């Protein structure tokens, strides 16, 4: 192939087949562009695959995922499953996608939709994740709800004592994550209510720094959790978790509103591990690398405002969904539509130049 002759066609490659990738693909396909999805896993769905039900209305995650997949299939979007893109090479005005030494394909425009990663809770060893079986992350608890993982306490416990710790690995400069993951708060509310519905006798505590109920109907959900479900919200950071009586955990915290120390024996402690970058975008001249993130690396940087989907410094490279920072599904879907429009405008402007 002759690189200099290569002009971008109306071809868009989407990296990542999670909610953002699928929705962006749909929006572009509806506008008449040919798109393809590169997904490293063998299945579409991203993190959504692992969730049980969704805030604020409790819609089953599998239903939403089913609908998305159906539409993608209906539009016959070509899927490259099991292909993980780790390098983009600029050739002419377009891109060649690479996995190691293997070229995967080419496209005029690339949209990054490769999402986020979960903060590794073992980095906060004082909470004992990986050490005590009764310490879970929010994602683990979704797996429990989905019956892919057992409850950490015996089936004889009808009134388990459960604690949720907000902001684990979020808003934590020392851990190199200064940002707010913004949906852990409402997820904790959702999960606390679910635990209460499964075990009405349970005592459920949420330890928070401050509650950020920013989305539609989140605040209402929070009120419901307190009033209808009796979930107890305690402002204060957990200082440590240690083995307690039997299989229980001994947890120490301080109620900073009442100014008193708290000691609790818990059957399950759920850490609201935040959202962190899944990869480090390393930009070079005419090449972009997707690398393992290092301490302190950030999400994908975009130009912002009217170009909220355009990756800085790179023509023809866009980003959609949670790879730009923590986002809920409604936000991801709205973003996908906006990014599709930006991509369309970019391709049109190129054509105009070519014609002239």
């Amino acid at each position, binding site marked *: 192939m002759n690189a200099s002759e290569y002009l971008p066609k109306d071809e868009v490659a989407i990296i990542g087949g999670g909610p953002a990738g699928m929705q962006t693909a749909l929006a572009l396909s509806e506008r008449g562009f040919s798109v393809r999805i590169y997904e490293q896993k063998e299945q579409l769905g991203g993190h959504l695959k692992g969730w049980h039900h969704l805030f604020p209305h409790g819609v089953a995650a599998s239903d939403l995922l089913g609908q998305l997949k159906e539409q993608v299939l209906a539009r016959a979007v070509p899927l490259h499953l099991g292909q993980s893109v780790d390098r983009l090479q600029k050739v002419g005005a377009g891109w060649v996608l690479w996995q190691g030494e293997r070229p995967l394909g080419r496209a005029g425009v690339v949209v990054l939709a490769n999402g986020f990663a979960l903060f590794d809770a*073992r*980095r906060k060893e004082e909470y004992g994740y*990986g050490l005590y*079986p009764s310490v879970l992350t929010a994602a683990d608890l979704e797996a429990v709800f989905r019956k892919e993982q057992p409850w950490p306490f015996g089936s004889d416990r009808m009134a388990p004592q459960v604690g949720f710790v907000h902001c684990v690995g979020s808003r934590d400069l*020392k851990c190199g994550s200064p940002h707010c993951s913004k949906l852990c708060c409402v997820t904790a509310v959702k999960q606390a209510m679910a635990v209460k519905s499964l075990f009405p006798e349970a005592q459920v505590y949420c330890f928070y720094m401050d509650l950020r109920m920013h989305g539609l109907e989140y605040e209402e959900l929070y009120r419901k959790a307190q009033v209808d479900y009796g979930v107890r919200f305690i402002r204060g950071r957990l200082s*440590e978790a240690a083995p307690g009586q039997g299989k229980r955990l001994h947890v120490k915290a301080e109620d900073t509103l009442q100014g008193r120390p708290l000691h609790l024996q818990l059957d399950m402690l759920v850490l609201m591990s935040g959202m962190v970058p899944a990869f480090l975008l390393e930009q070079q001249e005419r090449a972009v690398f997707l690398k393992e993130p290092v301490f302190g690396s950030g999400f994908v940087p975009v130009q912002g405002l009217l170009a909220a989907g355009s990756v800085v410094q790179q023509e023809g490279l866009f980003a959609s969904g949670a790879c730009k920072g923590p986002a809920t599904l409604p936000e991801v879907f709205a973003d996908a539509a906006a990014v599709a429009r930006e991509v369309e405008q970019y391709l049109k402007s190129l054509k105009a130049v070519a014609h002239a």
Partner: protein
Amino acid sequence: MEKSAWFVWPFMLGFMFALVVLLLRYLWWLRSLWRRPSSRLLSRMFSKHSLLAVREIFSEGLLHLRIYKRNRRLGFMHMSLALGWFMMIVGGKFETWFHSGQFLHGTWYAVFFRYFEPQTAGGWAGTFWLHYMDLGLLLVLTGLALAIMKRIRKRILGIHSSTRHTLVNRVALTFLWMIFPLRLVAEALTFGQHGGGGFLTGSLGRCCFSSGMLAGLELPLWWAYSLSLGAFFVVLPFSRYLHIPTEMALIFLRHWGLRAAEDLQPEKALQAFEIHACSACGLCLDVCPAIKDHPFQSAYFLRALRSGKGWESLASTCLSCGACEEACPINLGLEKLRTAARGKIHEKHHAVYSYLPTVAPVETSRVDVLLFTGCMGRLKPATTKALKDLFEEAGLTWVHLDEQESICCGRPLSLAGRAGEASALREHNRNLIQGQQARMLVTTCPICLKQFRDDYGLELPVYHHSEMLWYCLRAGRLKREKGTACFSYHDPCELGRKSACYQAPRELLQSCGTLLPLEREQADALCCGNSLGALSLSLSERQALTSRTLKVLEVSGAQSIVTSCPLCQHNLARQSRLPVRDLAEVLAVTGLPEQHGQRTAALAAVQEL
């Protein structure tokens, strides 16, 4: 003596002035001893301790062996300056004695001997003295050349950072640099005109200064020499060159048993001598992990103490990592001094620990080990768990003293200079410890270790867990087979430099895997960046230090980083790509794998349902 002797006066006046000021300053610093002379000091004065002091002055004040060991070129520079000058002073005395038959002369006589007696015959012995004095001069001039090079290009002398000097020091430096070249030229001219001289001055005189036209320059040159000497002596007591006599005095005082005070008294007793004995050699600069970020290193801190300005911020930013104290060639008690300064800053703030519960001794059964994990141990439950498993394996009985409630060992407070508060915490813990019957106290935290060992005065022996595990391994109570794992080991400041424990952790790791050599380790190891000592370093500065330390630890081939301090581990783990584990975890092979096993097993059970 027919020649005019007026030119010796600048030297004489300067010299007398320096002598008087020094004497007054030293007497002032020692005023408390004056009032209450300690009998110990007096008895040590007239004993072998004085001889030992003389020996140390010779090896450190003249030969500078400790500097030489760290950095040969720099050591050679210091050695040539000091030894050369010393040779000339001693040689001058003997030479004048030899030629005049008289031992006592005016101080100036030996200094300007060449001017007054340009042609001293005296057979082979006279020639010896001529060459000997030239050798001394040559040594000094070599040292001087190196010193000038050091100012221009420090890399040549194998150093990266050198101290920046204040005005008075630059003035003193200029006079000092002028003295010896002037002496060389003055002597050479005298010999050129009158004949004689050694291999250096004589030859130089014959080849360059024998013309009769230069005769008129002789006296002015000797004037210039005398003036620069005199001027140097006048500024000496107010410049960093005060260190030359003060270091000697300090060595004597130390050998006589004087110890530095706990509180800050920069103009009193041993502390005053320490503060003024720093030669600004700069060895403390290159070893400091924060040298690129902050100019708070010991040389600057001591300078600020001498001037009385700005020492507060310099005292509290430092990490208390101990690297400079390890490097300092005159063994200044830098941490103690810094702690004293911090105490002064916090003088007005007082915390009250009256809320601590009073401990009533309870009858307990006798166990092997009393385990104390400390506040930092709370951050690392996996280490505690691993260690308990190892105790079981080694068949040891134990009580975990601070399992439920912990009270800080006191060292963070003492590092912050809050001695009184620290002792309140110590008192409480001492009661707790004494209420137990155990054969030894074991702690996983090197910070606690140092405090328990140095400041508790406990009857039972105190060990760090690495030492205890090492004993168990040697006694065959723990057995390990060498595996394929490759480790790099981070020496915690508090365990390494502060407690000199380097071997135990290394042998433990070598028993079960391969330990990789590092660019900086043991006494030269870098601080993890988050020591308790750093009271005011910002988070981003600490993180920069941590990533520099990690660069050293992430050597190729390393599969994990191992350390033996909960604080170091906590800090390194946050930023590291490689897993960071405690020695006990490595040895116990507990934690994750087993737990993963449990989870998968449980999962399998669920799926069967």
